[in-house]
Structure formats: structure tokens, C-alpha cells
């Protein structure tokens, strides 16, 4: 609409405040939208509502005492956070852990990845308007994983299961039958989602070619995880910088074509299938041994610095730990994937409609606990 025609029409952009209390901002995120009718002209994000300054807390906690805090970072995938932090501290202490502990950690992390992706898919469908039905299906499946974790470590959301050098408990007796039953159940359910959502025309119309994230822009914004793979970059830490026992397990990395919201959803759906495969193999190859470890001893690492990143369901979670020989870390920097994934949002949204910003936000799968730390 070039300006010559609109001389007489006095259109005025109005500012709308989407958040921090809004049904589809996935937590406490405030987006300031400058709207021209339905078209978004400009969007600025205000974060920090959930800032608990974890890094300052870490400087007054010993290495073992900080483990429950990592649950509260990405509270939907707290097993992966525990694993990321605990592996960083083990690298600092260059501590070797038993094989069985490695396999248990892989099983727990992959199951938690499935639970986290289920929430991402359920809330994405809810944001697109499929009110509550896909969300309840995803929560019904996630409930089965939560029961398994409840038996393994005693808590349903903030597990605090991993320790420096191993895990808290060994797997209970009948748990592998339960996991096998869950894997068979979950495979049929994921095919249901394909029928219900993936190729549904309204769903396609709403999410195809919306929020196109080109490959170089994604890398430039250091977006990571399923959002990066959906843009066509084949980069997954479990394959490219293998840790724990991932190089022994055989699985492939789903990659999207043109990085739109539908591709991000599809990559997450495929990753659930891959994680099921990983859990199955890891369960089969579970060695004997004692993965548990005592926590009475206070670890005092020699003064040094390490940076370690692991593949979180939302992206690459990095821990930069600087120790000065005392029992407390001198500085602990948490590199959170949602922080960089959210930075892309204002760029993707220019010129789209309100319904699209909700769709892109849902597909980026942001989690404010992790963004604000």
C-alpha cells in the first residue's frame, strides 16, 4: 500500500501488549507489538520476569548443593539439565563414572526429551487453535513417562536424580518391562498425531511458510536444537560431539527443509521416534555394576575453567564453570538455549499477523525458566 493512495486514509498503528500474562506466551514473557490493523509492524520482547539470578546463587552453594537448582532451569526437561551440570562438574574434576551410570543417564535423558517434546507439540497445537484435544493426548502420554520417573527417583517434575560421579538410586526392579510397554504404546500414539495434526490442511495452512528461519540467520543467532535442525542444518551434539554412550547407539537426526513452523514441529515429532529407538537400545545394552554414589564428600576442584555443552530438548545447554580451589564455584555461567532461540523472534515476525506470532512462538518452544535463569 504505497503512501500516495493512502493520503486521505489516516491509518494509525496501535501498540498492543501481549504478555506478560497472556494465554500463549509459554510463561512470563512480554511482547510489545506495534500493530497496523492485524499486521505486525514491530515486536520487542521484554524478558526477565522469572530472573532468580541462578548464577549468583551458584556462587554460594557447593557443587552438590547446586544440583536441585538445575532442575528449576528448564523445568520441563530437568533430567537433561541435571545431566548437563553434573557432566560439566565431572569434567572439571575429571572424574570417570561407571558404565551402568552412563546408560541410566542416557535412558533418563531421552525419556525426558520425549516428555519435553510432547509438551512442545501439545502447546503448539493448542496455540494454533486445536483447543485442548492434542494437548490432552500429549499429557496422557507424558503421564506415563512421569510415572516411570516417579518410580526411578521419587519426584514427578524436579527429579534431582543425578549426582556428581553417578546417580542417586539404581533402577528399581520391574522398570524395564514398564519402559518397554511404554515404548510400544508411544509408537502407535505418534502415528496418531501424524493423522490428527501433521497433514491436517488447516494445520498446514496455519504453520507452513510461517516464521521462515533461513539457515545462515539461524546460525548467526546461534539458535540450536530442533529449531536449527528444522532450518536444514544437520547439527546435533549427540552425533557431532558424542558424550556418554551416544556413539555406541544407532539413531539418525531428523532435519527439516525450509525452517518454517511446520518443519520445527515435524522435527520434534521425528525426534520422539528417534528417542524411543535410543531408549530401546540403551535398555537392551544396560551393563551390570553400581551406578550410585555417596554425596557426603565435599568436592574441591583445582582452580581451572571448563565449558561443556549438552544437547537439551530445546537446544544446546552450556555450563562455563570457573573454580578457584574452594568448595564453591568462583563463577558458573549457564548458556541457555531458549535465550538465543527467543532472540530470533522479533526478526521472524515483521509483517505477519497476530495469529502468526502465536504460531511462531509456539514452534520455537521457548521456556522462560531457562531464558531468565
Amino acid at each position, binding site marked *: 500500500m504505497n503512501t500516495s493512495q493512502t493520503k486521505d486514509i489516516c491509518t494509525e498503528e496501535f501498540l498492543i501488549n501481549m504478555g506478560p500474562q497472556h494465554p500463549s506466551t509459554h510463561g512470563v514473557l512480554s511482547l510489545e507489538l506495534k500493530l497496523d490493523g492485524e499486521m505486525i509492524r514491530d515486536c520487542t520482547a521484554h524478558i526477565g520476569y522469572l530472573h532468580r539470578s541462578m548464577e549468583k546463587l551458584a556462587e554460594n*552453594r557447593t557443587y*552438590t*548443593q*547446586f*544440583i*536441585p*537448582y538445575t*532442575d528449576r532451569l528448564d523445568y520441563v526437561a530437568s533430567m537433561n539439565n541435571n545431566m548437563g551440570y553434573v557432566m560439566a562438574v565431572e569434567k572439571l574434576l575429571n572424574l570417570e563414572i561407571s558404565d551402568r551410570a552412563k546408560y541410566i543417564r542416557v535412558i533418563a535423558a531421552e525419556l525426558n526429551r520425549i516428555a519435553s517434546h510432547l509438551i512442545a507439540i501439545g502447546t503448539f497445537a493448542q496455540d494454533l487453535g486445536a483447543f485442548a*484435544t492434542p494437548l490432552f*493426548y500429549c499429557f*496422557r502420554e507424558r*503421564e506415563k513417562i512421569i510415572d516411570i520417573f*516417579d*518410580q*526411578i*527417583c*521419587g*519426584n514427578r517434575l*524436579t527429579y*534431582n536424580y543425578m549426582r556428581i560421579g553417578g546417580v*542417586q*538410586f539404581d533402577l*528399581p526392579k520391574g522398570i524395564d518391562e514398564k519402559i518397554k510397554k511404554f515404548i510400544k504404546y508411544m509408537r502407535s500414539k505418534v502415528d*496418531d498425531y501424524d*493423522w*490428527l*495434526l501433521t*497433514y*491436517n*490442511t*488447516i494445520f498446514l495452512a496455519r504453520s507452513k511458510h510461517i516464521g521462515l528461519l533461513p539457515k545462515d540467520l539461524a546460525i548467526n543467532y546461534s539458535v540450536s536444537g530442533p529449531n536449527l535442525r528444522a532450518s536444514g542444518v544437520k547439527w546435533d551434539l549427540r552425533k557431532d560431539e558424542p558424550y556418554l554412550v551416544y556413539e555406541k547407539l544407532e539413531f539418525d537426526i531428523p532435519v527439516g527443509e525450509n525452517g518454517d513452523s511446520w518443519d520445527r514441529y515435524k522435527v520434534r515429532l521425528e525426534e520422539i521416534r528417534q528417542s524411543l529407538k535410543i531408549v530401546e537400545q540403551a535398555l537392551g545394552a544396560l551393563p551390570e555394576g553400581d551406578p550410585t554414589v*555417596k*554425596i*557426603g564428600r565435599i568436592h574441591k576442584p583445582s582452580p581451572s575453567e571448563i565449558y561443556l555443552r549438552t544437547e537439551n530438548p530445546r537446544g544446546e545447554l552450556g555450563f562455563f564453570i570457573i573454580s578457584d580451589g574452594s568448595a564453591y564455584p568462583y563463577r558458573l555461567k549457564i548458556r541457555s538455549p531458549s535465550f538465543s532461540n527467543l532472540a530470533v523472534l522479533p526478526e521472524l515476525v515483521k509483517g505477519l499477523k497476530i495469529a502468526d506470532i502465536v504460531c511462531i512462538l509456539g514452534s520455537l518452544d521457548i521456556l522462560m525458566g531457562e531464558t531468565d535463569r
Partner: protein
Amino acid sequence: MVIIKIIKLSKDLVIGAWSLIKGLVITLKNCFIPAITLQYPAQKQPMTGRFRGLVDLHPEKCIICYQCVKICPVACLAIAHKQENNKKVISEFKYNMELCCFCGMCQQVCPTSAIYMNKIYEISVYDRDKTHINLLNPGKYIEWLNTSIK
């Protein structure tokens, strides 16, 4: 040229309609699968063996080694002891339920497993000083019903 557009449009319409019907089939299928939600106050799920509820204590087992107080990340445990004819006796064991993050570190670090986490999860209070609990008195958790599976 227009005919190709019409054919393409009608093909899209048919594929679209077919995908919508597939979605409907799923919801209808789920309509006949029995519901799995619990009617909460009437039906309660028993907590598993390792569930971490409120912190509880066997006073006789405690050897006053202060391990649990040292390990607690939020410092919600506090012990005071006195020397009585060459034996240490606990005079006070305070537990601040409000700060507790139910991480289970105290339960794991205790050498004689004197301190453990019971199965109470329905915890609500009307005033804050109800959350400061003295672990020594046996009747501390009467008002919250115990849902342990044993």
C-alpha cells in the same frame, strides 16, 4: 490454463478434506477409549516407594553428625544439641517446611537414615508459623493425612 487451476484447486480440496476426515477418525476412536483421569478427592494415586514427601525423623537413630544440615541447599534444617553425661542428646531439631525444595539430599546423606521423607504431599497451611515444624514431637504431621502405600 484456467482448467488446470480448477483441477489443481479441486485436487487440493479433496486431499484437504481427506486429511480433515483422518483427523476426525482419530478423535472418534479416542471417544470410545475409556477415560483415564482420576476424580481427585475420591480416588487418590498411592505414592511410589521412593516418593519424596515431607521430611520426617526417627529421633533415636540420629547420631547428631550435622551432615543433613550441611548438605541442605536451602538451609531449612537446624539442630541444637547438649552434652549429657558424655552422650550427645538432641535438644532441638527445627525443619522449615516453607523453604524446603524436597530435593531428598538430607535423606541420602544421613549415615543412619534417621532423617527420611515420608509420603505426605497434600501440604497446606493457613499461617506461616505452622510451617516451622519441630521434628522431635511425634504428633507433628497429624493434620496432613499420610498417603503412604505401606
